């Protein structure tokens, strides 16, 4: 059963995966079929729960032994994967087809040196390779994926690597045994946009060089656009649409694909006026609500002192939306927490409606707590899992001094209704809800004391793109109807453009550029902003290729 060069590298026919649960079987993948020619790239795209990772795992039969029921056929390089005996399957895994996972921090063993882990995999697939030769090969592949000083780095443990370097190390492990197929499951989702662009460029380069076939799993249509030849859009475990990437993203046939594309925020398009509002609905900015001057935050002491926020000055006017963008470590979360005074600034002044609040103690801050509220990133961990959602919303009311419990409950039910949840869900617990619904609860809780300013820290980054669009629409609506001012913190440049009036770009604790969104996005002045914008994935494969060429030339 040797594979001919013309045979498809991957051939999946009628793949179905069921996960048995206490409440009956859950069908994660339902009758999916596709083929991939050698050296070609296929994108498996879809929202969470669409079954895309389950399909990817089935290519190496990683479901074996987990209790999942897999039917249909999966052939990789001519071998029937689902029927392959253990030994043959082990040879396939990592030898013929290698997998790269999403979270590069947890995907490597923290206890062993990176080079040793690569060498270990190599020795499994090339029995007879000496330890020394395996180590040398590990250094070679680390060098190939662009790790500087690979001989020294090979001896480091994963926690000594940055996120991007870890993902490169995983790619090096994948390349070690010269596979014919690379399966990448959300390989850049945990990375900053500039690092994401570097990793995707590297993937592209490796494929061009070695003729690797690629199956790329991603929720980000922009990532798929720039990296694959064909896409398979999945929804609820079924194929929604399949075809060449330019066709599917350029002129989608399936209603779901259209919906998905419409929900993707565009970094290159000016904000469309929100539905129902007048064109250019942003109200004229009112008086300054919150003013920061020379704000600074340091952590640690002595030699370990780091400056997270460094001399930041900004103003939020009543009723306006200020976007704060920055990559991980830029200090945006620290800044957000100082603005609501969850943290005390090390230096600088912070004024709320003309009153200095930077140094106030907890008791003096009490009245401010009702005026300035925060919405957090992770809606599942920022709600108390042991309290009903209604109680979580009512709590801030009680904290603000509402002593009549019936009134508090009534108001909490109104708020649930206001954010688009059924008030009768008052007595349900957070785990009964989806991510988007939980974020609505988080917003309702923040609205409870009737604040004037809402600081939202990455409020949509844990959500699917369609849910993301719903939540940003909700925030825009609340802002319009309640006259709320928003500080919108996010790493996603497109989302920030979609919701903000003005934007400030943070880098290493400093604001490098600030201005009206359209001005900053359309003609960025600072090279850092230009670099960030150049790294954002775009939906048009041709534009993506052009941007890649530009990055390569730079």
């Amino acid at each position: 059963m040797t594979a001919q060069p013309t045979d498809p590298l991957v051939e999946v026919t009628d793949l179905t995966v069921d996960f048995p649960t206490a409440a009956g079987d859950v069908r994660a993948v339902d009758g999916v079929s596709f083929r991939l020619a050698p050296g070609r790239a296929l994108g498996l795209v879809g929202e969470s729960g669409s079954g895309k990772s389950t399909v990817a795992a089935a290519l190496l039969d990683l479901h074996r032994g987990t209790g999942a029921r897999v039917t249909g056929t999966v052939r990789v390089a001519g071998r029937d994967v689902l029927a392959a005996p253990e030994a043959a399957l082990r040879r396939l895994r990592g030898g013929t087809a290698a997998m790269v996972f999403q979270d590069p921090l947890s995907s490597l063993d923290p206890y062993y040196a990176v080079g040793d882990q690569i060498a270990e995999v190599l020795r499994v697939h090339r029995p007879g390779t000496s330890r020394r030769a395996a180590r040398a090969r590990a250094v070679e592949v680390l060098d190939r994926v662009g790790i500087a000083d690979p001989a020294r780095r090979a001896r480091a443990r994963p926690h000594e690597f940055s996120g991007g370097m870890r993902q490169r190390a995983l790619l090096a492990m994948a390349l070690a045994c010269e596979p014919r197929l690379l399966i990448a499951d959300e390989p850049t989702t945990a990375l900053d946009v500039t690092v994401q662009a570097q990793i995707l460029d590297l993937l592209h380069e490796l494929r061009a060089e070695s003729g690797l076939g690629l199956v790329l799993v991603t929720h980000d249509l922009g990532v798929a656009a720039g990296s694959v030849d064909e896409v398979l859009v999945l929804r609820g475990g079924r194929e929604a649409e399949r075809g060449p990437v330019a066709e599917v993203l350029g002129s989608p046939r399936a209603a779901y694909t259209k919906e998905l594309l419409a929900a993707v925020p565009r970094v290159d398009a000016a904000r469309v006026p929100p539905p129902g509002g007048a064109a250019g609905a942003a109200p004229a900015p009112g008086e300054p609500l919150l003013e920061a001057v020379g704000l600074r935050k340091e952590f640690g002491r002595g030699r370990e002192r780091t400056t997270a926020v460094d001399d930041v000055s900004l103003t939020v006017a009543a009723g306006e939306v200020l976007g704060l963008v920055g990559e991980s470590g830029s200090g945006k979360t620290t800044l957000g927490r100082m603005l609501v005074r969850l943290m005390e600034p090390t230096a600088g002044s912070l004024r709320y409606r003309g009153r200095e609040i930077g140094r106030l103690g907890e008791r003096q801050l009490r009245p401010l707590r009702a005026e300035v509220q925060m919405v957090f990133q992770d809606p599942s961990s920022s709600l108390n899992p042991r309290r009903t959602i209604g109680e979580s919303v009512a709590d801030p009311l009680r904290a603000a001094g509402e002593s009549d419990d019936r009134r508090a409950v009534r108001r909490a039910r109104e708020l649930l209704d206001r954010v688009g949840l059924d008030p009768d869900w008052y007595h349900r617990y957070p785990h009964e809800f989806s991510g988007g619904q939980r974020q609505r609860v988080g917003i309702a809780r923040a609205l409870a004391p009737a604040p004037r300013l809402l600081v939202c820290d990455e409020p949509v980054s844990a959500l699917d793109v369609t849910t993301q669009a719903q939540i940003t629409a909700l925030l825009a609506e609340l802002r319009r109807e309640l006259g709320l001012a928003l500080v919108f913190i996010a790493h996603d440049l497109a989302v920030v453009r979609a919701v903000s009036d003005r934007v400030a770009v943070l880098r290493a604790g400093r604001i490098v550029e600030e201005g009206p969104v359209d001005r900053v996005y359309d003609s960025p002045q600072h090279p850092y902003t230009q670099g960030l914008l150049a790294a954002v994935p775009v939906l048009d494969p041709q534009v993506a290729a052009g941007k890649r060429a530009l990055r390569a030339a730079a």
Partner: protein
Amino acid sequence: MTGYVLRKLGGALLVLFLLSVVVYLLFYVAPGDPARLACGPRCDAGQIRQVRDQLGLDESLVAQYLHFLQAIGTGRDFSTGTGVLHCPAPCFGLSYQNGQPVTTLLGDRLPVTASLACGAMVLWLLLGVGTGLLSALRRGGPAERVLTVLTLTGTATPVFVTGLLLLMLFCASLQWLPFPSYVPLTEDPEQWAWNLLLPWTALALLESAKYARLTRSATLETLAEDHIRTFRAYGLRERAVVGRHALRGALPPVIALNAIDLGTMFGGAMLTETLFGLPGLGQLLVHSVRTVDLPVVVGTVLGIGAAVVVASAVADVLYALADRRVTLT
């Protein structure tokens, strides 16, 4: 790292100092006159006065404590009326019972307790970690069930019951083993091990269920981690995945707990020592409390305290060495 060790050392000294104050105070709160106790039951009032004078019991409490501390640094001479008994530094006093320096007594007993504790540790690690690993990998298998019942029974049964049963079975009925008596390792290693086998087993049975549970939960936790999936997806045999990667991740908590348990064994194995007639620290402590031999009580308590304090510092260092992501500050 150096700063960490210094800080730990300072903390350890503080703990020992406080311990010595508390024990020293007990010395005086304890019912009975130390001089009468030291002198023995057949002393008349004159002799007792003489002893009180020799022991410096007429001085104030603070002065006596300072003398006690000073003796640790420089040694101390005790007059016996007929001559002078020198107690070399570090001096923790002389036993009321036989006039021997406390340090000599402790020095004699330490190897016994160390032999008991270390041997038992090897056994409880083998039994506990083995059982835990097995139950993480083959849940519900026959070997796992037998071992789990064995370790749980061992923990649930008081050591004097387990120990007696072992003695009756292996020494009295089957006569496979001698009734334990301590033979120093340096004298005859084989006899040393044979004689200690039963006490080791009794202690190991007592401790192993804890290690089985800890190993099991830590292994299951590691097996659920993403990097295990990575190595499975790269074609490693399950044996290598578990042996090299899952077990490695489960070890740090086991190592840390083990260091503390080992420290506790130095004072906590008194039942075992007494039952098997091993002249260790625990037995010494029990004996000295029973005979109200106060200098020995103070010395032994401090010695055991030192073992626990050192063990907890060692546990921290081992944890950091086992998991390099942890930094000691």
